[in-house]
Structures are given as C-alpha cells and as structure tokens.
C-alpha cells in the first residue's frame, strides 16, 4: 500500500505544470496518510519486498507502527504544503521545483519505510541531494549557494557516519536487512556497540540539527523557498529523530544508561542554545530555523529519558517518555510547517524576511496573522494548544525520572526540567517578538504598508495546519491510543490507558495521583469564566463608549513607525544578560551639524558572535584546507602520474586481497 502511495508520489514528476505536480503530491499525501492510519489502527506491519538488479540492494518496504507514525506526519504536512504551494510557487521554474519537491517527498516516504540498510542509505542520499537542489533553487543569490554547499558537505559527513555505523552492523548480522540487526546488535562487543551508537548519533544528529552539528540548518532553511523550508523543518529534520529511535530501540537494545544521559544533555543544550540564538535573529525564517533546533532538543529530552528508563528497566515510564518525544515530533512538524508557511506568505507579499521592515500586517493580512498567532502560541508551549500537551508530557517524564534511580544522577532530571522551563519561556519571548514586531503596530516600510493577503489556496494550507494544532491540543487524549502500537513494538509496553481519565477528557501522567491536565477542560473553563466580565458589563458598563485616539507621544509630534520598538531593541535585555555567550559587538556612527545632541543621521550596527561557527568549524575548515594543500603536491595534473597511482593501488589491493 505504501509502495502504491510512494509510487504515486514519484512518477508524476513527468508533469511539469505546477497545478498537476503539487495536486498529485497532495493526493499522494492523502493516500500515504490513509495507509499510515490503517497501519496504526490495525497495529500490524505491512511489508513489501522487491528484488533489484543491483547486488545487496533490495527494495524492501516495511510499514511498521513507527514508520507509519512518521509517514502520517509527513502526509499531513505534505498535504497542507502541497495545497499552499498552488498559490505560493511562481510560474517560472515551477516544473523543476515541483519535480524536486515530489522527489523529496518520495525520498522521505522511503526513508521512513525502507527496511534494508542499502536501500535506506540510497533513499537517504536521494533525500539529501533533492534537498540540496531545493535549497539552491534560488541560486542567483550568493548566500543561497553558500548555504547549499554547507548543507551538502555536512549532510555527506553525516551520511559517512551512517554508512560506517551500518557497515559495523552488517558485518555482525551478515545481511542488509533491518530485521537481522536487532539480533546482531546484541552480539556486538560493548565497545563496538558504543561506537555504533556514537556513529549513528553523529550521523542522524547532523540531519536533526542538534548542537554542535547544527550549523547548516539556520543557513539552509531560510534560503529555500518557503514551502520547502516548511517541509525541511517540519519533516526532513525528523528523519534524524526517526533514525535515532529505530537504531537505539530496535538495533541496539538494551541501551546503555549513558546513551540516554548523553542524548538528554545534547537535547537540553540544543534546546537552550537554539532558542537563545533564535532570539537574536530578525530574519523571520532564520528565527524559525533556530527554533527547529530548540524543538529537536525538546524531542531529544523525551527520547533520552526513554532510553534511560529502558536501561534501568522502567518500561512503562520509558513508554511515557517516548510518547512525549513522539508527540512533540508530530506537533513540531505541524506548527513549524504552519509558521514557515505564514512566513512564506509574508515574504510573498512584502518581499522581505527582515522583521524590521514589516509591522502592521495584521490589518493587511488578517488570516495569515491569525494562523501565525496560532502557530506562535503552539510553539511557545502555551495551553490549550498541542505544544503545551507534549511539553507537559515531557515534564512529567522528567519528574518521574527522579524516582527511577537512587544515585546522584537523578538530579539531572529536575535540572533538565528547569532548563526546559527556561527554554519554553524564552521561546514565548521570542514569539512575542516575532509576532508582535512583524504583525502588530504600524508598518515599518513601504512594502509592509502595501502588503496583500495570501491567496485562497495558501490560506487553505495554513488553515489545515492551524486546525491540526488546535485538535491535537484539545483532543490529545483521543490521539494517544495511536501510540500504543509503537511503544508496544519498541518497548513491549503500552501506556495510553494510563494517560487517560475522566471519560477520556483528562490527560494523566501515568497515574491520576502523579498529575492531571485537561486542555479541553481549561478551554471550557476560560469560556465559562467569560460570564464574569459579561455580567459586569451588563450591570454597569453598558452605557460606556469606546473611541479611537492617538497614543501618548510625550508631547512631541504624532507617533510614527520610527518610534516603534524594534526587534533588535526587543531582544536587547537578553543580549546583555547572556553577553558571555553572544559576545555582542556594536558600532554607532552619528552625523551632526551643530551639536552631537541633535544628530542628523545615525547608523547602528550590532552583531553577535556565532560561537560554534567561529570556534569549532573555522579552525576545522582551515585544517582541512591546509591538508588539502599538502595533497596538492601529488595532484600534478599529469595523466602519467595518475596512471601510476592507479597501478600502485591495484597492486596493493591484490596483495591485500591475496592474503588468506
């Protein structure tokens, strides 16, 4: 069935028209989603195996619950993006874009369903290559090309790690089939298991964008067309999460405790630094890209705790933590895609990604603003939307973690929880900035003042995702049983029945004593309480009038857009408080004629240091370049020399191969 859906996604690329390519992509998404839902409901695996002419390579698909879950997220997001793209994509180049987009969808679907290491890696590479093509789509900008190359290099470094990891497993299993890896993982020596884990963590970590392997992400996501950014941030980085789950819970069971600890630490570092860097951005799309790093970090908190619990034999808690991580994976896919689509609509309408040139868009683009607000509330983890539910589950998993061990390491859980609180609060600050500066108050530029509302298909795409944010928040308890087949197959334990109470309306953390929450109840309560101001209004305020007037301008002229707080100013307190991290530099030049107190023009420049790029990658790059310089000595460009190299290599290989 998935093969059918995937095939559908694949072969329409022959159609060059925008309508057809994205329309069929939407259809493929619906079919793929239906297949996934059926699998999750039935709880059974669907496999499909095809031979190919290439040795070791078999086209084997397995749609097990985990794959179905990720495919479902893919289907939902792809559907919304495909509808949106009808209005978003310009006519020029739509064919190439549509072709690459469909190939990427196919590659993603195959990555999630492949059950043969060779096939998986092929799909992984196709995904990386098509994504490279999409990132470089607007290749007339130099920054786009640079971002594309950076993505290309890091992506392949990651793939190299994956290959090494898979080869170690293949050696032990004697085959490329995923089914054999679980057995093989048990027979490996402890040192080798650790090595395989670290290789996979690095390989999948690059794709997921965990710090410090994240540098490609904030460079590549903003420059891609916005519908592609949405797909990349929503789904493509989740392939890293998918891979990590597949490897740690299936191939390398039982996990070592320190793996979970490492993932927990990586997660919290990614979450915190991701949001801190996001706060400093005033490029709307790059801000969102940094938030992807943050949310990957939050997902890893759930994943890391699940591994720790499994290692210590607490299977039910592990299931709770895994559900928290997976739910956040789905939620992030949805609200991040929504936010990128919203940012795309703004970019489409104003032609800028710079928040300092937006403002007042809520009047010109009311629908887009509303959907963006929904996305902002969801990503800030505020009730009653979906982000809150998964963050709440993560907190509960972390709190429960305190009781799983008696050693000092148990303190790690509450500390991680408090840093998650800091992350979430900073994310809320960041989205007050993103929404407030871009959409509220007065327009800051001519383009913003002339902005137009997004077209109907773009609004429809955003509506689907916004509705999903609300549904997954309010109806969280109804969706939880869908996780049972996943935790059942990976951990042998199901938790959905422990997570529901009160006729299914209340979400429970394992047991009713441990804590309850009901997004639906909270929303109902908020609406019911509206009776208080309404009643008081009826009693005393019915005669009051509401008039419009200018804001307080300190007795000067009327307030203009130049008086508004800017994004840079908004994040200034954070920049000063965390100056040790950012190492901000600034430059002010004022021109004046009579006295410095009456400047004619002021130029202000402020920059922060990208610590990882500067301290980690730049020295490494220099080292590589120096090494390459050495190698140049043997690259003389003479065909005779190259023939000699080939000959020597051949001899060496023969000697090596002849050894018994």
């Amino acid at each position: 069935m998935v093969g059918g859906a995937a095939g559908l996604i694949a072969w329409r690329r022959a159609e060059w028209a925008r309508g057809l390519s994205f329309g069929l992509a939407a259809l493929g998404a619906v079919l793929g989603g239906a297949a996934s839902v059926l699998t999750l409901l039935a709880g059974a695996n669907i496999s499909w195996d095809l031979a190919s002419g290439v040795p070791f390579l078999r086209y084997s698909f397995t749609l097990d619950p985990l794959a179905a879950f990720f495919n479902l997220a893919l289907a939902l997001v792809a559907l919304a993006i495909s509808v949106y793209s009808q209005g978003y994509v310009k006519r020029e180049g739509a064919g190439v874009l549509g072709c690459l987009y469909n190939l990427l969808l196919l590659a993603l679907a195959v990555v999630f369903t492949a059950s043969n290491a060779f096939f998986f890696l092929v799909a992984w590479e196709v995904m990386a290559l098509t994504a490279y093509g999409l990132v470089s789509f607007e290749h007339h900008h130099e920054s786009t090309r640079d971002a594309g190359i950076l993505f290309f290099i890091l992506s392949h470094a990651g793939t190299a790690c994956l290959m090494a990891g898979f080869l170690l497993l293949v050696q032990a299993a004697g085959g490329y089939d995923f089914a054999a890896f679980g057995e093989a993982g048990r027979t490996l020596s402890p040192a080798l298991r650790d090595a395989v884990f670290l290789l996979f963590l690095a390989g999948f970590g690059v794709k997921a964008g965990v710090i410090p392997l994240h540098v490609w992400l904030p460079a590549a996501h903003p420059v891609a067309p916005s519908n592609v950014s949405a797909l990349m941030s929503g789904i493509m980085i989740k392939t890293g999460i998918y891979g990590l789950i597949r490897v740690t819970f299936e191939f390398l069971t039982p996990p070592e405790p320190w793996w979970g600890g490492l993932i927990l630490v990586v997660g919290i570092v990614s979450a915190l630094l991701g949001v801190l860097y996001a706060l400093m951005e005033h490029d709307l799309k790059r801000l969102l890209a940094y938030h992807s790093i943050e949310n990957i970090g939050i997902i890893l908190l759930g994943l890391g705790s699940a591994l720790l619990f499994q290692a210590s034999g607490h299977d039910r808690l592990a299931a709770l933590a895994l559900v928290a991580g997976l739910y956040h994976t789905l939620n992030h896919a949805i609200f991040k895609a929504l936010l990128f689509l919203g940012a795309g609509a703004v970019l489409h309408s104003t032609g800028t990604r710079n928040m300092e040139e937006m403002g007042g868009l809520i009047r010109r683009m009311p629908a887009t603003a509303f959907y963006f607000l929904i996305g902002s509330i969801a990503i800030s983890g505020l009730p009653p939307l979906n982000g809150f539910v998964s963050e709440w589950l993560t907190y509960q998993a972390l709190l429960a973690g305190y009781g799983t061990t008696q050693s000092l390491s148990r303190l790690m859980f509450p500390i991680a929880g408090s840093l998650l609180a800091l992350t979430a609060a900073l994310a809320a600050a960041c989205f007050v900035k993103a929404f407030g500066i871009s959409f509220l108050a007065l327009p800051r530029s001519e383009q913003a003042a002339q902005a137009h509302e997004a077209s109907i298909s773009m609004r429809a795409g955003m509506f689907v995702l916004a509705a999903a944010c609300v549904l997954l928040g309010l109806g969280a308890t109804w969706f939880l049983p869908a996780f049972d087949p996943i935790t059942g197959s990976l951990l042998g334990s199901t938790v959905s029945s422990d997570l529901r109470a009160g006729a299914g309306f209340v979400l429970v953390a394992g047991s009713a004593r441990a804590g309850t929450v009901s997004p639906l109840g909270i929303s109902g309560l908020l609406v019911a309480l509206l009776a208080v101001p309404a009643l008081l209004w009826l009693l005393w305020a019915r005669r009051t009038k509401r008039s419009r007037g200018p804001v307080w301008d300190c007795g000067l002229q009327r307030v203009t857009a130049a008086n508004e707080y800017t994004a840079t100013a908004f994040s200034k307190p954070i920049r000063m408080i965390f100056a040790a991290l950012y190492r901000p530099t600034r430059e002010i030049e004022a021109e004046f004629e009579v006295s410095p107190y009456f400047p004619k023009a002021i130029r202000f420049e402020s920059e922060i240091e990208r610590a990882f790029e500067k301290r980690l990658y730049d020295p490494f790059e220099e080292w590589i370049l120096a090494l390459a310089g050495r190698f140049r000595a043997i690259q003389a460009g003479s065909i005779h020399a190259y023939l000699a190299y080939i000959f020597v290599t051949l001899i060496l290989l023969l000697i090596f191969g002849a050894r018994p």
Partner: protein
Amino acid sequence: MKQLAVASLLQLAVLLAVAPLASGIIRTLKARMQTRRGPGILQPYRDLFKLWRKNMVVPDSASWIFSVAPHVVFLTAAAVGLMIPMIAWEAPLGLFGGVLAIIYLLGLGRFFLALAGLDTGTAFGGMGSSREMTISALAEPAMMLAVFTVAIAAGSTSLTEVARSAAGQSWRFLAPSQILAFSALFIVLIAETGRIPVDNPATHLELTMIHEAMILEYSGRYLALIEWGASIKQLVLMTLLVNVFFPFGLSASWRAPALVIALGVYLVKLLALCALIVLVETTNAKLRLFRVPELLAVAFILGALALISSFLF
C-alpha cells in the same frame, strides 16, 4: 458534581473578592511603614468600580489583539484561581491541571499582554513587553526547580496531592529543602507580581516601568480587567506559597462551619505574607534592570539547593 460546582463558585467568589483586598492591604501597610496615611484598604475596589464605568480610548494603531488581551489576562488568572487549593484541601478544578498548567496558563496571559504592549506602536509598550518577557523567562527556571522540589516530595504535580501530603507533617516547613524552596518561590513571587526590588508598581516614570509600561495605553473597562487580573494572579501566587508550605487550617470538606474557620485561617496567613512583602518592599530600593538577573540567579540557586537538600535529607 453538584458539590464541585458549588465549590468552584464559592472559590471563584472568594478569589474575585479577596484579590483587590490583598492589593489594598499591601498598599496601606506600606504607607503605614513609610509613616503615610495611605488611601485605605478598600481603595482598589473603588478604583476598579470607577474604571469599569468609564468610557475608554483605544489607540489608532491598535488591532484586535489590544481588545482581546485584557480578557485573556483576566480569564487565565481566574481559571488558575480555581485550580489551586485555597480554603479546602481540594482544588475545585484540580483535575484540569496541576502546577505546570498553572504556570503555563499565567504564561498565556503574559504572552497576550506583551503582544498588546507591542500593538500600541509606542516605544514604551515595546519596552515594557521586552522587559516583562525577559524577566519572566529568567524567573521560570527558579520557579520550576522550587516547584519540582515540592512536587517530588509529594510525588505529584497536582496541588491537591501536594497540599494533602504536606498536611500529615505540620512541621515539614522547617525542613531545609522546604525553607530553600520557599525562599526561591518568594523571590519569584516578587518578580512575577512586579514588586520592588524588581519593578515598582507605583512608579510614574515611564523609563523605569515594566508591567505599567505595557498597559500605559489602556483605559476604562480594559484597564479594570487587567488590574483585576493582575491582583488575582498575585493572590494566586501568594495562596500557592501559603498553602503549599504552610497547609494548616485548610478545610477537609466543603461544609459550612469548617469552611468559615478555614477562610479565617487563610486570611490570617495571607496577612502575614502581605506583611512580609511590605517589609521587603520598604527596606529595599528598586534594582537596576540589569541587576535583576542576579537576583533571579539567586532564586535559581536557592531552588537548586532545595532540590539537592531534599536529596540529602
């Protein structure tokens, strides 16, 4: 079910009625400590009533966010008030959410208020929003650590359970972890309710404002809703402090005689906490904005110590 409805309505009534009183008591006590007469403890009621009946002016540049925000602030504060144990063990609507939901619901109110600050288009509003979001973000980890300490001791994030587990051991508040957690939460209370030394609720100088700067453009009914909401939020946080750490006097049932006694004890406890807040407010000067993170770092460290000492003892 009927009992639940009665309990909810009762608590809502107490919440709405007592919240301005607490603000009034703090103001009067503060005036007395500064040897002023002060406006009398009923002044907040008079202010609210007057504001409620006034016409209002909405800025030209404002959008619908400006009108929605006061309602969100008020509704979230009132909703949270029903999810905490106030005069009885049981939080009437505790099933809807424990301490995590409370923190995040208050966050929702703050989110909208900060947006409203930006919505007006003045520099003051933006300045207030920026500072409010920064300070609340820094207060969050300290709050979470202190809350975790309490939640771990009770094995639950549900406040009914937390209060119940504390009940058996009336001297538990003397345990080092409880004292440290209380201190951390007290600093967070000061920061969250915008009191000296973090923010000055009585300031008239825009450049030093935090909370007041965000609501500078509000008038009439909307301003009344925000002020009322803010005082409810303050009461909720104060109630959390007194009932989680000093749970004596809470009524075990929703019957009349027990409730009246419990209400009396509750008011006395609140009065004591008000006195403590006033003491801090009058003996300290307002901190410079960039000194506030240091104060909150102290709260964070207190929270961490609370956690470690609960591990050791």
